[in-house]
């Protein structure tokens, strides 16, 4: 599966432009580089003024940075997208079925398809949720599934993000920026619109309100303005026309959740929360949480309020559960998975551990509970010292790690000072599950800006691009 030359999204191996990039290639050829330079500057200035920034942890409090934006879009032919969309819907449907199952009858465990203790002993499994019936049996209302292409261009699912996936605001703002900068390209070809995402999201959130609520009140719960994704929280709340609340704006009385308003308490029915489980309710989880709402979990368990995403979804997107997703699809849907998993070594298994330790310089090793690109080892890019240090960490606690072959991620060109140059990318489409499963044609394309780098996370120097699905 490992290839020396990564798949190039724009060019065929013989240097010809792929048909779906033809219009773009022509535009690049005919546009003076000076104009492109000016547009890059204009984009940066606009993003700064609009305040599309993210906070960086570990730097001076309140430090804000722009996520670098690259003007060359990631283009996907319509047919290819339809295949991806089908696969993503299938996958998220199975993951929701799995979540409902492990908090109810545990059929998949009883059938022996997944070792019971891996689920029930996992710290991400929330016993508080056992037996609780959620509207439409949906747990992961918003899923952001990371896709990559490797080898000769085949797609793989890298991660299922089912807790509080972020990045959708960049999908929307990048599109807005591109339409402002290069309207002529949109006139030439039919790019599927993404602007209706906030409407789809609001519909989804409303559709999972507690039973018998006629016009549900929805609020977005944020940890506050120093959170790295605060811009996105404020943006989405505004786009949907719902209140952006912090923990202190909410309180619970008799298992009903209220917002504090200028006219007194107002009932809240659905909370789109962008706070981790642990911080939701100091009475139920971390008692030191000042972000949460005391009594929220009790109201939730009694079905008086819906949380999106549900509590306890982490058990399904945990890296130790990832290898079982294809089996979940077969078990719950009776279908063959349409999207590939990356082969994964589970270091809790003796054989896998031995293989991994012997091939550290070829593999990517990740912490089971980690996210955001923190704490991983990229074998081919590591020094011997780093590998030795990491080896000790693995041996200390093998079950906390998985390993995967180093995928040679596909590349897409970006603008650099001397023209264009290929960089590795991935794609995060968003899947919304309420009464139905709906998707926006597109997603967030992240790009590793450093030459040769495989890390696309914004916290690690990644940038973003607009994603075009051609009709």
């Amino acid at each position, binding site marked *: 599966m490992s290839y020396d030359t990564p798949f190039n999204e724009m060019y065929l191996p013989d240097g010809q432009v792929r048909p779906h990039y033809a219009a773009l290639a022509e535009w690049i050829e005919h546009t003076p580089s000076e104009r492109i330079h000016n547009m890059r500057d204009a984009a940066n200035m606009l993003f*700064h*003024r*609009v*305040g599309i920034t993210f906070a960086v942890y570990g730097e001076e409090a309140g430090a804000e940075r722009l996520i670098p934006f690259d003007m060359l879009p990631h283009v996907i032919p319509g047919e290819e997208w339809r295949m991806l969309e089908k696969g993503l819907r299938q996958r998220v449907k199975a993951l929701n079925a799995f979540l409902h199952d492990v908090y109810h009858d545990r059929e998949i465990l009883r059938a022996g398809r997944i070792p019971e203790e891996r689920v029930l002993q996992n710290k991400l499994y929330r016993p508080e949720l056992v037996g609780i019936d959620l509207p439409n049996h949906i747990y992961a209302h918003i899923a952001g599934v990371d896709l990559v292409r490797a080898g000769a261009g085949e797609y793989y699912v890298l991660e299922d993000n089912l807790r509080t996936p972020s990045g959708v605001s960049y999908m929307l703002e990048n599109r807005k920026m591109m339409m402002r900068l290069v309207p002529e390209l949109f006139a030439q070809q039919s790019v599927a619109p993404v602007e209706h995402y906030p409407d789809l999201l609001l519909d989804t959130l409303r559709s999972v309100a507690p039973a018998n609520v006629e016009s549900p009140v929805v609020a977005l719960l944020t940890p*506050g*303005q120093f959170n790295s994704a*605060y*811009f996105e929280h*404020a*943006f989405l*709340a*505004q786009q949907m026309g719902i*209140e*952006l*609340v*912090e923990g*202190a*704006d909410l*309180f619970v*009385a008799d298992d009903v959740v*209220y*917002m*504090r*308003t*200028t*006219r*007194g*308490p*107002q009932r809240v029915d659905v909370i789109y929360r962008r706070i981790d489980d642990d911080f939701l309710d100091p009475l139920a989880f971390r008692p030191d949480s000042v972000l949460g709402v005391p009594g929220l979990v009790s109201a939730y368990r009694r079905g008086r309020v819906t949380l999106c995403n549900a509590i306890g979804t982490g058990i399904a997107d945990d890296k130790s559960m990832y290898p079982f997703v294809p089996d979940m699809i077969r078990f719950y849907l009776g279908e063959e998975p349409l999207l590939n998993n990356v082969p994964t070594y589970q270091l809790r298994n003796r054989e896998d551990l031995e293989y991994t330790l012997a091939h550290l310089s070829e593999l990517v090793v990740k912490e089971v509970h980690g996210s955001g690109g923190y704490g991983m080892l990229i074998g081919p890019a590591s020094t011997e010292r780093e590998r030795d240090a990491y080896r000790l960490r693995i041996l200390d606690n093998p079950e906390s790690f998985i390993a995967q072959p180093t995928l040679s991620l596909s590349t897409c060109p970006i603008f650099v000072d001397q023209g264009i140059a290929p960089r590795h990318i991935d794609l995060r489409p968003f899947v919304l599950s309420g009464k139905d499963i709906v998707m926006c044609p597109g997603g967030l394309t992240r790009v590793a800006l450093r030459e040769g780098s495989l890390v696309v996370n914004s916290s690690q120097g990644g940038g973003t691009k607009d994603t075009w699905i051609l009709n």
Partner: protein
Amino acid sequence: MMLSRTANHLYWMARYVERAENTARILDVAYRMSLVPKESRLADQEWFAPLNITGTLYPFSGRYSQVNAQGVLRYMVLDPDNPSSIFSCARAARENARAVRGSITSEMWEVINGTWLEMQRLTEERLASERVLEFFEWVKERSHLFRGVTVGTMLHDEAFHFNRLGTFLERADNTARMLDVKYHVLLPSVQDVGGAVDYYQWAAVLSSVSAFEAYRKVFRDVITPLRVAELLILRDDMPRSLHACMNEVYDILQKLTSASQHEASRLAGEMHAALHFGRIDIIFADGLHEYLTDFLRRVHQLGGEVNLAFFSARAQKQAVA
């Protein structure tokens, strides 16, 4: 209906923008007064006025050795540790705006964020004498722009009213302080009362609140302290007068509803009525400085009542029960 916290941020966002503008106006008038030729023993005495009327002479003295143009400008414009410096106001306005990004229009956000980005680039050279007036103009323009964009783009709903409430309460406070400048700036000698310097100082007060032309239009006569005070206190068609500000504050409080706003509304009504039926000769008989001091106390009290009625968490749980 809106979140108490949101209302609070909107109110303070507007207050800080207005405060930045008025600090620029106060400094502008001090600067203009300092240009009047005088004996050296009185040099720099105008620079006490901005500190006195904003109540910051004490903290200033703790950090700067001498009251002069350079020190006062640095302290009241650039000093990040002075919570009411123009720099700090721009930052606070921006922080409040950021906390309610979802409740203001993107145009409003861009004005406030753009001002803050520009402010961070401000250096002491820009405060050098030949450019300082230009800088005050810039601050005023940004504030005008903010209010224009607010009125022109924001839905005129409750969020708008809280924003405007902040603007006019802050402006009432600031106009009163501005008018009090004269009390704190000494004339070179008793003979100068009614003389050229006196005239010049009252004219500077008028200009500082953009009321010079209005004065000429209304009175068509020479500048006298009594008329300046009448214009800036009692005339309700003068946009920065105390009467005009309290008109707005009173109206806004009528439009807003809360379970516990009675005292805020009553107090605003009382202040409004006193201005509506007030007479300038009576105000002068009791002393202008005393009148303004009392007015400032009431504005402060009203701010406290607004806080209790709309922003504090106290009333909420009782309402559910």
